[in-house]
């Protein structure tokens, strides 16, 4: 269930923690996206109580907070892996073979698009262009970019994170 929010770092689950995270921003609706970024960064995903906390703070309905969050691909309403592997499959990467990279990742991780590995380490997301067309095909693992990829390079890249993450 998505009912409680747990800070992945301090494991705190009380509402006050979320409240602090939300209330560092102003109260007009223009702060919604920045708040969602902050919540996403801190908790890894948007929870029900965070949604309500944000709604109360900004004076809008929880339904709007949720609906807005789900519009943007960088926000998630379910927990993601520690490393989010984003693979671009827009034309420049596609032309240069992104599908073979996807296949290599899927084989290595054993999950498909939008899924998270059982150990909670990796989530694979096939996304739109992130501007690394000069080094296509490319992926981003969290904030780090890897380009000019071949399927053979994938195991090494992923195992590096696997080592770091465990």
């Amino acid at each position, binding site marked *: 269930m998505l009912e409680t929010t747990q800070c992945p770092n301090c494991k705190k689950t009380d509402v006050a923690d979320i409240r602090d995270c939300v209330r560092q921003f102003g109260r007009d609706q223009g702060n919604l996206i920045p708040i969602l970024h902050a919540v996403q960064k801190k908790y890894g995903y948007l929870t029900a109580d965070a949604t309500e906390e944000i709604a109360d703070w900004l004076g809008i309905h929880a339904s*709007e907070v949720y609906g807005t969050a789900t519009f943007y691909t960088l926000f998630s309403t379910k927990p993601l892996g520690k490393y989010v592997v984003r693979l671009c499959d827009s034309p420049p990467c596609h032309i240069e073979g992104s599908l073979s990279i996807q296949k290599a990742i899927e084989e290595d991780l054993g999950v498909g698009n939008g899924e998270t590995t059982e150990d909670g380490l990796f989530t694979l997301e096939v996304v739109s262009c992130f501007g690394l067309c000069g080094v296509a095909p490319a992926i981003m693992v969290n904030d780090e970019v890897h380009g000019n990829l071949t399927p053979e390079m994938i195991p090494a890249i992923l195992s590096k994170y696997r080592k770091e993450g465990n």
Partner: protein
Amino acid sequence: MANTVNLTINGMSVQAEEGMTVLQAAQKAGVYIPTLCYHPDLSIEGVCRICVVEIKGQRLLCPSCAYPVAEGMDINTHSPKVREARRTIIELLLANHPDECLTCSNNQKCELQRLAKELGVQQVRFEGARRDVPIDTSNPSVIRNMDKCILCKRCVRVCHEMQSVGAIFANKRGWDTVIAPPFNKELSEMVCVFCGQCINRCPTGALKGNDPAAEVWEALSDPDKHVVVQTAPAVRAAIGEEFGMPAGSLVTGKMVAALKMMGFDKVFDTDFTADLTILEEGNELLHRLKTGGTLPIITSCSPGWINFIEHFYPEQLPHLSTCKSPQQMFGALAKTYYAEKMGIDPSKIVVVSIMPCTAKKYESERPEMRSSGYQDVDYVLTTREAAGMMKEAGIDLPNLEDGKFDLPLGMSTGAAVIFGNTGGVMEAALRTVYEVVTGKTLENVEIKAVRGMEGVREAEIDLDGTKVKAAVAHGLANARKILDLIKEGKADYAFVEVMCCPGGCIGGGGQPHPTSEEIRKKRAEAIYAEDSGMALRKSHENPAVLTLYKEFLGEPLSHKSHELLHTKYTAKTKKKAKA
């Protein structure tokens, strides 16, 4: 006065006012443009692209609902390009819409069905994936089948703009967009007040109420059951529309006749308990005035409104009158007073309500509404559902001879009838309170100050020297304004009437489609016409109510009254998502 703008529409010279949209200008000139996401009650969404028109000099087709007129504009509303575009759009919608017209609750009333016909759609050239979302049947008031949704967002707009409830919103994006409560919860888990305004505006069959017709038919054919029906005042001013009659047709007698044909053992009137409400609530007001109770006192007839205040303003619950709604007073009396009087075992009595309201379905199932020892009201049918049953029974309502309500619970006054309109409860109460307080006869019973369609209205009533300030609000966004005033300590009203739906019950979520300000006004006129045609127009003059007190209740606010006619409220969390 806005500046005049000269345009050409379909080769015709037309004048419009600056600031008008092309759609408004066309409507003014009598030129029809089909629409889908547009609704006269709501803000402009401009997403369905059905109302596109060709404007000379524009590269693209322009949505007429959102496009402002300009001097010299040359508009073609039905050029081949436009017609082809509209038809393609409808085809695209149909390609993602279930082929279930014949089993759809909105069959033959569906705007998509009508547009497909009107635009001459003969085939759907596109095929592919279709939306597949589970149906939400979590509550009795609003059933959501998002596979039929065309994403016009009328429901979202009415829920946010008119009702300020915000239970639903567009989630996800692109082709995956779906209108839903957050986290794909079911509506029963959300702060939905069950007002059904979304159903009223849904162009397709994506939203509907839970129809208990089958259960009611079963009760009617059960020889062991004594089935009584009560009809809310707003129903008689609208049910004719379901049979093709113009809005504002008053069909009280025909409705009674139809219900008798359907086989109800007794056809009673919620108006009876509306009169009773006035006596209880009026006395409650006087009592609070005298004893320094919580003021303003706020009416409690409207179950959507009760849900709203319980969720959003729980701290203000003491302002609510403790009176049950007339529907529930009726149910409680039917299974006690009436059962006793007739010598019928209350367990054999089935109480059916016909209401303009979907929230009443929820209200009847509240656990506190069992003061007779049974569920006081067994089934609630909306105006639409009742008409559906009549049609199924082959009843040609417009051509029926008038019937008469049964006694005693069918006796009522004009004061009760006007409960159907916003301001009606207030007016009815003032008619009684005036006479009780002053001991004088009120000559002009029509208190125009509290009538009308303005969202929030205020009035000051002179009770023989004592001035009482009153306020009336309808539509929950307007109710919110008053509650905020109270919260801020800026409300010096003694008495406030709040109705959940725009226009009051005549604009309820269970009323016939379509709805618009114009239609609501016509229904309201019908209600006032019924009132002015009645001999008795003050609740405290209702002889049946007086008999009820004499025989059974004793006096207003008596012990028995409290047991049967009053209730309590529960503060609910706004965060039902967590529950």
